[in-house]
């Protein structure tokens, strides 16, 4: 068993060599690295499909790819980015690596289950990827019936099975993290002394455990319908294709909160550290994560306002969708207030955090357009929606992800990354991102539909701007890939606490030993204590 018996003077990276010690590891930190490798691969692959899409859209005519190839390209992009990058990334990498250390634990509650989660991810993702590339799927990542169940001639079943298997990875991770937080906190680490990253991971785990099984069932029904013509989604047999949409979105809406909540948790860590100030409104920020997780299960019908769903159902879903926006707004205001009268250093993680706050605000506000019944009729299934979710997922979730990568990189690798290049690429990303996705809001209101291979000429200028932005965005992602790999060999060795941050993970060496702590820490004070003055009471 490899994981916690340690050679003296080793850290988790050097304690045990060879492929077996990695592929059979039970150390949460090594499993985090395994996830890092896996999701990075799928991020790059998903990005290649995005480049194909944006290249095609440079011209109004469908002249680069055949319609079938284009449809497979945008499907592959969506499936890989959502299921094999955004969903597993922060829980799999930082949830695994950092969460146990943050609570003063030696590992997660179920280390073997943790390793199994990674294998389920790799197996499911691998099956789906091979099918996406070999056969291809052209249904979009949303797999709407009856196209996907009756008419598509592509590899829907193997891709569906791959996603199904991958879902169990998330369920097991969710169970693991919940039990870990309940049962393995160090003495003195009460619930309201937990770092906010832990709160957000806990809320995420709730969604993973309760929501993912619905996706599993939906995919099973789809596969059975396709293989045996059951008729669940076929009106000729008394079924209803819109039922698929209800089932699919019942999971897939909460899924977007699985993708954003962990990132929000990262932002809380970054903002407090780089302001050297306790996060403003700790209790409100913690509870807002839970509120988002709960309310997030009640809004799925806002994807279906024009689906033939009843007008009254639409009203219920719209008002609930507006309510779920409020906790996110509370977070944004609390992060902003944390900066007020802080002591702010402009290191790269903070730049990503500030980028997140701006871009997530825009993305969230455009969500209010889509939650609005009167306006969504016009905007549904247009590029406005594409712009909205990319602002949240790329401008939000990925910025948080990169901020976390830079923040915890010294801890994970024992090396500092080059600060100059890191700041530069953060800037490149911010510019490239806005150029890529802001024009899409305009395109959407002008009426350009989603998933169009060819489009009317009057939409070309905005598409060219968007594609130009995408090439800049690509550069912004490639630069960190290069310097992070470079830093593993040539980066300055990192001290235990390069940022002067509060939090138990900074009490361990960089990189930590396999067993995390020599002695179980005892927690005696509130989190994020930077100043030793009396708290101001307002």
């Amino acid at each position, binding site marked *: 068993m490899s994981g916690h018996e340690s050679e003296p003077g080793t850290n988790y990276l050097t304690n045990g060599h060879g492929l077996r010690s990695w592929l059979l590891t039970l150390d949460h930190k090594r499993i985090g690295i395994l996830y890092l490798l896996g999701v990075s691969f799928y991020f790059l692959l998903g990005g290649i499909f995005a480049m194909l899409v944006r290249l095609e859209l440079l011209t109004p005519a469908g002249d680069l790819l055949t319609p079938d190839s284009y449809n497979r390209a945008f499907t592959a992009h969506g499936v890989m980015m959502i299921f094999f990058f955004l969903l597993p990334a922060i829980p799999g990498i930082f949830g695994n690596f950092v969460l146990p250390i943050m609570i003063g634990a030696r590992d997660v509650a179920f280390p073997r289950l943790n390793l199994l989660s990674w294998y389920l991810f790799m197996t499911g993702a691998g099956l789906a990827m091979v099918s996406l590339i070999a056969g291809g799927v*052209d249904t979009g990542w949303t797999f709407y019936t009856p196209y996907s169940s009756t008419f598509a001639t592509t590899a829907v079943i193997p891709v569906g099975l791959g996603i199904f298997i991958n879902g169990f990875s998330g369920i097991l991770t969710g169970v693991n993290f919940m039990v870990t937080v309940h049962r393995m906190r160090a003495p003195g680490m009460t619930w309201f002394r937990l770092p906010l990253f832990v709160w957000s991971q806990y809320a995420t785990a709730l969604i993973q455990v309760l929501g993912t099984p619905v996706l599993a069932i939906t995919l099973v029904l789809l596969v059975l319908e396709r293989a045996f013509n059951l008729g669940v989604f076929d*009106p000729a047999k008394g079924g209803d*294709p819109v039922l698929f949409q209800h089932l699919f979105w019942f999971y897939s809406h909460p899924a977007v909160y699985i993708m954003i909540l962990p990132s929000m948790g990262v932002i809380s860590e970054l903002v407090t550290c780089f302001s050297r100030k306790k996060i403003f409104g700790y209790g409100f920020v913690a509870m807002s994560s839970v509120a988002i997780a709960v309310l997030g299960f009640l809004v799925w019908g806002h994807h279906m306002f024009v689906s*033939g769903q009843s007008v009254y159902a639409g009203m219920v879903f719209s008002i609930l969708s507006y309510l779920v926006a409020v906790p996110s707004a509370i977070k944004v205001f609390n992060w902003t207030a944390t900066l007020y009268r802080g002591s702010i250093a402009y290191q790269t993680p903070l730049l990503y955090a500030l980028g997140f706050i701006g871009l997530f605000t825009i993305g969230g506000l455009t969500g209010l357009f889509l*939650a609005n019944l*009167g*306006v969504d009729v016009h905007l549904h299934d247009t590029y406005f929606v594409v712009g909205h979710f990319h602002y949240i997922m790329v401008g939000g979730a990925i910025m948080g992800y990169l901020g976390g990568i830079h923040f915890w990189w010294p801890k994970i690798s024992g090396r500092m990354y080059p600060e100059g290049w890191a700041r530069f690429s953060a800037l490149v990303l911010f510019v490239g991102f806005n150029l890529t996705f802001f024009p899409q809001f305009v395109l959407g209101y002008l009426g350009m539909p989603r*998933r169009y291979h060819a489009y009317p000429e009057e939409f070309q200028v905005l598409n060219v701007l968007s594609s130009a932005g995408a090439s800049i965005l690509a550069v912004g992602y490639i630069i960190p890939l290069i310097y992070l790999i470079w830093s593993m060999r040539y980066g300055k060795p990192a001290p235990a606490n390069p940022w002067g941050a509060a939090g138990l993970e900074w009490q361990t060496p960089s990189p930590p030993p396999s067993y995390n702590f020599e002695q179980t820490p005892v927690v005696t004070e509130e989190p994020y204590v930077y100043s030793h003055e*009396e708290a101001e009471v307002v």
Partner: protein
Amino acid sequence: MKLSILPEQASSLAAEVDRLTWFLIGMSTFFTVLIAVMVVGFALRYRRRDPESVGSRFDNSAPLEITWTVIPLLIVLFTFFWGAKVYFDLYKVPADTATFYVTGKRWMWKIQHPTGQREINELRVPLGQPVRLLMTSEDVIHSFYVPAFRTKSDVLPGRYTSIWFRPTRTGTFHLFCTEYCGAEHSRMIGSVHVMEPDDYQQWLASVAVPVLPATDGRELFADLGCANCHRAESDARGPSLNGLYGRQVELVGGARVRADETYLRESILSPARRVVAGYQPVMPSYRGQLSEERMIALIEYIKSLEANPTRVASAEDAVRP
């Protein structure tokens, strides 16, 4: 190359939708700028000058939390109510609106005017008059979208969905399929032509219509044997269809349903699903025997049957266009 920011407003509701959008844009811009100014401002103002300095202990304020919870809540509630009202207007069809039939099929739009004229991928409508589109799909889910009218609806197999609009400007406007439907999804497009009423009438007259849909339907009603059961006599095996359209129908089991086009269609294809109270479930299904065009003809005929005909209903009844 043209560069425009808003599509044309060509329907009676387009301006209202745009007004709501401008409010959302204004509100969003205000909050984005507010947050950006604060974030950048604080980052500059509170820059760490001394490497040892830490932030203050101002990290908690119930009044502030309540303020920035309640104000966003009020704003979103206001936005919700305004949007719900516009949504209602978008989907509530005014009385006496002419019904056009639309059939979506991979990858074209088939349109039929109330008086039977047919078009493919083009929809001609008269200026200033409300139009209702009753839509169904022959295969997968499509979506009928006219950006200039600010309205759309998904188009489903097995049932009817509808939108309505009143055109306020002549011209030619984009029609897009906007629910992904396979290989040629981006070519399932067309045009809506809004014409002066006289030009529209001229166009109608210029297109040959072999027979009015309802007349065609009357023949089908006889040919398919519907008249054998659906008669006005009290001992008939099926309920009379006179005046049925638009009425509330009581079903076996006590439920009630409004006899709209979807109900009529369902009763023809899956008659056992909703049986009229007082009758046996003996009606056979006509699934597979009716194209969408013939379904429309039958439905139009049934819609034309008056509640109290001046004489006993028969196949010779004059049919209202």
